[in-house]
């Protein structure tokens, strides 16, 4: 459904020094430099796949999404989405895709969402009866009711986002580009949007490429993730494989009957925390079984828990350390 080969985007940005002298120099002789936002990115996404697109701010996620939906022309490389070259933005292509940006809106601010939905139905040539049926189905899934007849400005952020999703999906697109669709929503609203996206994918078989700062979105929806950093693709595969790649250790938490010293834990992994009876260790995955057996054997253990470190911490740490 989506094929990307050697995709690159280079922006030319103006450079200006601060102060009056810098302003005058900039006015007389404008200096620019090229900034590579996306560099030689290649991947394929099959029909019906839900793929998470991860990366720090400025990593190139949004630029890539915009090239995939045809808003931006690539500097180099080839893109095919649903058999079309996106940058040509043919009507047939536009009817098969949608882009939802969490911070941008297409609904008319002072009118109820229903007015914008009627406009979208007309623009996409959806017959009235079909549009009414789809609006009802999608509104039920999103738990939207009377909100559709209240002015958008009177809706909460969560209600507005759900209405935006409804407007973006009314024409039943086959490819969904979702850029931070849960940004700023409370936990309940995030969960509702996630459930909706999973259900929409199950019902329609749509292909979804999703960026999000909330790892819960990715873990709940996307068996496969793309990780992009400084414009380059760093990982393409299952989320678990990314966790293995980023964190070769697992976290072991112990609650003991009585306190012990750090020396007692020598050779049993990396000690992260020791406060009275509470212990936190990082243990290499291949030594986990042996270490846990030794811990249970040597210490009076009241409780033991083995977990993967949170993926957002791993990725955050990765970017902070500049390991990619």
């Amino acid at each position, binding site marked *: 459904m989506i094929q990307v080969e050697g995709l690159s985007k280079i*922006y030319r940005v103006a450079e200006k020094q601060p102060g009056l002298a810098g302003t005058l120099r900039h006015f007389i002789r404008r200096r620019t430099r090229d900034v590579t936002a996306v560099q030689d990115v290649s991947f394929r996404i099959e029909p019906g796949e839900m793929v998470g697109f991860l990366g720090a701010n400025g990593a190139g996620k*949004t630029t890539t999404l*915009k090239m995939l*939906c*045809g*808003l*931006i*022309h690539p500097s180099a490389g080839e893109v095919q989405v649903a058999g079309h070259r996106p940058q040509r*933005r043919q*009507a047939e292509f*536009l*009817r098969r*895709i*949608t*882009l939802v*940006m969490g*911070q*941008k*809106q*297409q609904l*008319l601010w*002072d*009118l109820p969402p229903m*007015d*914008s939905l*009627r*406009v*979208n*139905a*007309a*623009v*996409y040539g959806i017959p009235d009866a079909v549009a009414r049926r789809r609006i009802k189905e999608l509104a039920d899934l999103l738990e939207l009711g009377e909100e559709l007849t209240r002015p958008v400005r009177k809706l909460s952020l969560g209600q507005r986002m759900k209405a935006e999703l409804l407007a973006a999906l009314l024409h039943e697109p086959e490819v969904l580009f979702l850029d931070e669709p849960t940004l700023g929503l409370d936990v309940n609203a995030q969960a509702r949007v996630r459930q909706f996206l999973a259900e929409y994918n199950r019902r329609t078989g749509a292909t979804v490429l999703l960026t999000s700062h909330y790892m819960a979105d990715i873990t709940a929806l996307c068996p496969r993730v793309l990780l992009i950093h400084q414009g380059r693709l760093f990982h393409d595969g299952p989320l678990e494989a990314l966790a293995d790649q980023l964190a070769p250790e697992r976290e072991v938490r112990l609650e003991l009957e009585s306190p012990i010293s750090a020396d007692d834990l020598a050779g049993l992994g990396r000690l992260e925390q020791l406060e009275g009876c509470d212990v936190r260790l990082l243990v290499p995955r291949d030594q986990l079984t042996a270490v846990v057996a030794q811990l249970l054997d040597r210490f009076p253990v009241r409780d033991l828990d083995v977990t993967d470190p949170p993926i957002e911490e791993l990725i955050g740490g990765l970017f902070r350390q500049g390991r990619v």
Partner: protein
Amino acid sequence: MRIFGLNRRIIRVLLGSQYAHMLEYRAEIALWALSGVLPFIMLSVWSGSDARSGLGLDGVALDRYFLSAFLVRQFSVVWVVYAFEEDALLGRLSPYLLQPLHPLWRYVAAHLGEQLTRLPFAALIAAVFFAVRPQAFWLPSLGGFLLAWLATWMAFAIAFLFQSLIAALCFWSEKASALERLQFIPFLFLSGLLAPLTAFPPVVRALAQWTPFPYLIDFPARVLAGQPVDLLAGFGAQLAWIALLLPLVLLLWRAGVRRYSAMGA
């Protein structure tokens, strides 16, 4: 059939929603209508001036000309460059560009919705004018009214295309509206808003005929006021300007979209 993505159903729904949208701003639009009283100020200036005889219009004709200029201006005022500039800067243009409808149609519908909202306020101001100057009252014939309506609509089309041309420059410069302000002074003088074109020396008048400005106010206002005017030349010039501007707008828009980098997104 679709023309640049438009069909009858879209026209109906877009106009309906934009009219409803503009009604939410009715108080603001009433103030805009009131702020368009420049022709009445100019009328009072010319009425008390000795230079009035040079205009070739007697008192009643002058009243009718400036009232017509006010009405034509009410229904041909264009602000697409400001709306477009804001949409481009705030990234609102992106969703519009991803729909199978040329984004300019949305702005056309917004303008028509706004004109419809203005209608009662403009009618009220005209009624007050007639109450103050009852001798100026007239009702154009049906044919005259239809011709004036057509000329006003074509004036709107020229103004809209002209400003869309400037708006398309937003793809290159984020503040293209500065260019719009640059053309405001020649518009004020050469459109007939400050004075009928007969007030100007023959050379200026002749030069003005080669600009779009006289066809934005002077020509439709004279048609509405029932004053002698060369209909064929006037409508011909309006059509020529539309025929010239339309392909330029479409070409510049297409080139601009290629350059578009979704600013602010």
